[in-house]
């Protein structure tokens, strides 16, 4: 097997570059001077077709020559936040796992064996705002794998004993997460920002998992896996015509139904003045930081400016946060910042794991950099240039594999972005001004309302944190609930 590449373009490039090599050889090497890069390579965005299937699903096909691979994915718009009943958090994930447990014609073992012999694996999962079921296969095994996927999605029998086994596994995982300071930090941060009533603040708990019945799973499956909210993306060694034929045949039994849900989220809780929320983890070698507040949805017109701003603040290795806290101060193995984007108010978050003995000093530096980006340390032209170059030129990586390409295209449809998004991306990033950066920093890095969640050894870090005077300290447990009393524990082990 060979990768087929066009040879003509290559030959032309060779002629031009041979000339430059000849001149290059004559210059003495000066190692102090960085080589001058040639012109940026032209971005080639893969083309794709969009078709409507008779069952209401959208079919996207992008042909990619070279390797005999096909990526197939069904994305369902809407996720656990839209479709899980109250008190049953976790039913979406359990249902996705249950798809491997047997169909009307095959046991779970038979499904597994069939997939192993095809050399592939079907992955199903449901996230907060979308779900997916899909695989990557060789070209020759595409139809056979798709047939198994269809059987799993449409004919699963959801055996009760399998549900009990998966429930038990989920409970063990939840217990293990309680020992994991990073997991605790993430959960508590969400709870503080969004509260228990907002889906972004909710999670799967022991109680919710125990409350889920087989009927819940069957009902979820029926409601959720509907073509009316589905985007089917096929990328790889296929043509739009052959892909459509395969999909129409493979998913013939998937009949019309469902629609894209509304994303109406309940109102956010009132923003609180900045506070330190301290979760005690006796004996912890590090303190896990999550600092932030709710931010904008993905469709904000500020998106490009925010991306540039965050790249400067904490999106890269040499961004302000990591350059200071890891590289200059040596307090951490790495810190960063980012925005979570979805249909609702995803979070702005800065954080990382900090050596316990430097918890207070690190908080001072975090605050210095956050105050810096909103105005105390003006953004330089050089910072803007590097951030923009980095964002623009990393675009080709989004098309580096069949799976990456599938994700890149599908996300446009899920997020309602224009078809020429990638073609216009560079211009949109380039158009961001310094004033834009100042404006979005002030608006979204809202210093007065930051939640500062720290999971660490309270006996060691509480007094030093208090002494910084940065914000008052509230004690919470690993569920994010206030700890009554709030007196310091006597010792750590």
């Amino acid at each position: 097997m060979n990768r087929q590449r066009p040879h003509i373009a290559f030959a032309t490039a060779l002629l031009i570059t041979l000339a430059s090599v000849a001149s290059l050889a004559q210059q003495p090497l000066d190692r102090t001077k960085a080589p001058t890069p040639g012109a940026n390579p032209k971005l080639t965005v893969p083309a794709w077709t969009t078709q409507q299937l008779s069952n209401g699903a959208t079919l996207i096909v992008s042909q990619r020559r070279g390797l005999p691979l096909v990526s197939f994915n069904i994305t369902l718009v809407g996720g656990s936040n839209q479709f899980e009943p109250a008190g049953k958090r976790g039913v979406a994930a359990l249902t996705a796992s249950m798809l491997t447990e047997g169909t009307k014609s095959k046991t779970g073992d038979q499904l597994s064996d069939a997939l192993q012999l095809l050399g592939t694996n079907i992955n199903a999962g449901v996230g907060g705002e979308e779900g997916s079921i899909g695989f990557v296969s060789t070209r020759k095994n595409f139809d056979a794998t798709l047939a198994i996927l269809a059987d799993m999605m449409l004919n699963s029998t959801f055996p009760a004993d399998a549900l009990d086994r998966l429930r038990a596994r989920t409970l063990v995982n939840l217990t293990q997460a309680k020992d994991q300071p990073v997991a605790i930090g993430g959960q508590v941060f969400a709870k503080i920002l969004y509260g228990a009533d907002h889906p972004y603040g909710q999670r799967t708990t022991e109680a919710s998992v125990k409350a889920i019945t087989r009927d819940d799973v069957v009902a979820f499956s029926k409601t959720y896996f509907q073509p009316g909210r589905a985007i089917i993306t096929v990328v790889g060694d296929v043509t739009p015509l052959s892909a459509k034929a395969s999909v129409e045949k493979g998913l013939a039994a998937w009949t019309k139904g469902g629609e894209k849900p509304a994303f109406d989220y309940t109102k956010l809780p009132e923003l609180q003045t900045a506070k330190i929320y301290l979760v005690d983890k006796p004996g912890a070698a590090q303190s896990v930081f999550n600092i932030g507040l709710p931010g904008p949805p993905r469709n904000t017109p500020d998106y490009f400016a925010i991306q540039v701003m965050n790249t400067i603040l904490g999106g890269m290795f040499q961004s302000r946060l990591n350059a200071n806290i890891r590289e200059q101060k040596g307090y951490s193995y790495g810190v960063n910042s980012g925005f979570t984007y979805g249909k609702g108010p995803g979070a702005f978050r800065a954080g990382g794991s900090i050596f316990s003995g430097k918890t207070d000093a690190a908080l001072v530096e975090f605050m210095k950099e956050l105050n810096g980006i909103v105005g105390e340390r003006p953004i330089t032209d050089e910072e803007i240039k590097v951030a923009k170059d980095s964002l623009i030129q990393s675009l080709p990586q989004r098309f580096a594999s069949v799976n990456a390409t599938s994700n890149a295209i599908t996300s446009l449809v899920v997020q309602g972005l224009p078809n020429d998004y990638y073609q216009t991306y560079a211009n949109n990033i380039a158009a961001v001004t310094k004033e834009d950066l100042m404006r979005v920093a002030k608006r979204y890095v809202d210093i007065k309302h930051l939640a500062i969640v720290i999971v660490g050894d309270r006996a060691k870090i509480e007094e030093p944190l208090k002494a910084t005077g940065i914000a008052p300290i509230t004690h919470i447990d690993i569920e994010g609930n206030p700890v009554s009393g709030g007196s310091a524990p006597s010792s750590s082990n």
Partner: protein
Amino acid sequence: MTNRRRVLPALALVLTLCCALQPVWGQNGSANSISIPFETYKLPNGLTVILSVDHAVPTVAVNVWYHVGSKNEMPGRTGFAHLFEHVMFTGSGHIPYGTHDKLTEGVGGSNNGSTTNDRTNYYETIPSNYLESALWLESDRMGFLLDTLDLEKLNAQREVVKNERRQSYDNQPYGRVSEILAAAMYPKGHPYSWPVIGSMTDLSEASQEDVKAFFRLYYAPNNATLGVVGDFDPVIAKKLIARYFTDLPQGKTVERPSVALGKLEMSKRLVYEDAVQVPRLYIQWPTVGFKRDDDYPLSVMSSILSGSRTARLTKALVYDSQLASQVGAFQNSAEDVGVFQVTVVPRPEHTLTELEAAVDQVIQKFIAEGPTAEELQKAKSGLELSFLRGLESNLGKANQLISGSMFYGNPGQFRTDYQKTLAVTAADVKRVAAMYLVRSRIVLSVVPKGKKDKASKAPESETVTMLPATPGGRS
């Protein structure tokens, strides 16, 4: 393996628990179709160069492997190979600190390094017009790193490494298991007995001269392989490589003393108390490294025992008896040594003693009957797809080609590996099961603090209290 940047904890967990970790080899479905076009040559100073063109995406991976890992360190001076992985990003003779990141991540690319027991690698993926910049960066740190390495830089990176250790080992549930097992598996002073990240005491005590001497010996062109894979013109690349690397002086020849395989005189039964709520059981047998042919059937055996729901251990423990919530089995092989490891996470109502007995029962049966034809076929069926998917990444291809070149003197080793894997028979697997899984072994129970009685066969288990700060077995 440790990295300069962060590894996602979730990934780390998956690796510890459940992956049948395949050695880095080329894999494919039919012998004729596996192909990565490449050319290879040596510069006069001994630098091995491998080029492989692929214009699919306008990016290039530049990847330099040095044949030095933690096993080349001396007892009392451990952690140097990994420390260099950090120091190498702090600027070199002609290039100030920060330039490396700016010319990689700052132009839309990425960079990182990684260290194992056997080798260290440094790489960047960049837009194709930055190939020359990457070669400039790599050649300067190969030739001129020590020119600007002072105590201040060294100390700053020592602190970062200590934080890496806190994050990846100390503050991580089950994070110390790999070093406990290595210290128990190998005798004191054995090159594989200390963790890749090394001892923090050693790092603190190392003098500037210790560190520099290590670099002079192991980071010379004759101990390195440079891979360039992706969207470039090979004629130009060769000229550029000659320009930037030819004048770097050849170093001393690196001696490679033979390393003894792991061998336990007697089985060891250990218990370690950790900040966890769920206990875990680890069983490890000494096997062979990836250069021995038994590595192929051992790897095939790992996917027959775990990984899919019909794999033997998974089916018996997770599905049928439901004693376990998760189980993993894998052959973990390095250049000179290897171990076969089974990891089990129990369901709350079951003990590690029960789990050990259940694992043994499955393994005894497997040793007696060997794999079925279908089990063997299933274990090999995924090879073609994973080989093809590996071809989608320039960096992945570079790693395969360089690994073959460094360890076997043949960048095309992936083909041999593939053929030898496909050639594994049921009798081969049965033979290695009967040969290695009956040996003296280590059984390690990790239990919650104060719950030593939860260990498998607790009365017979020896407590692992504190690991020695300096390398060596606990023997």
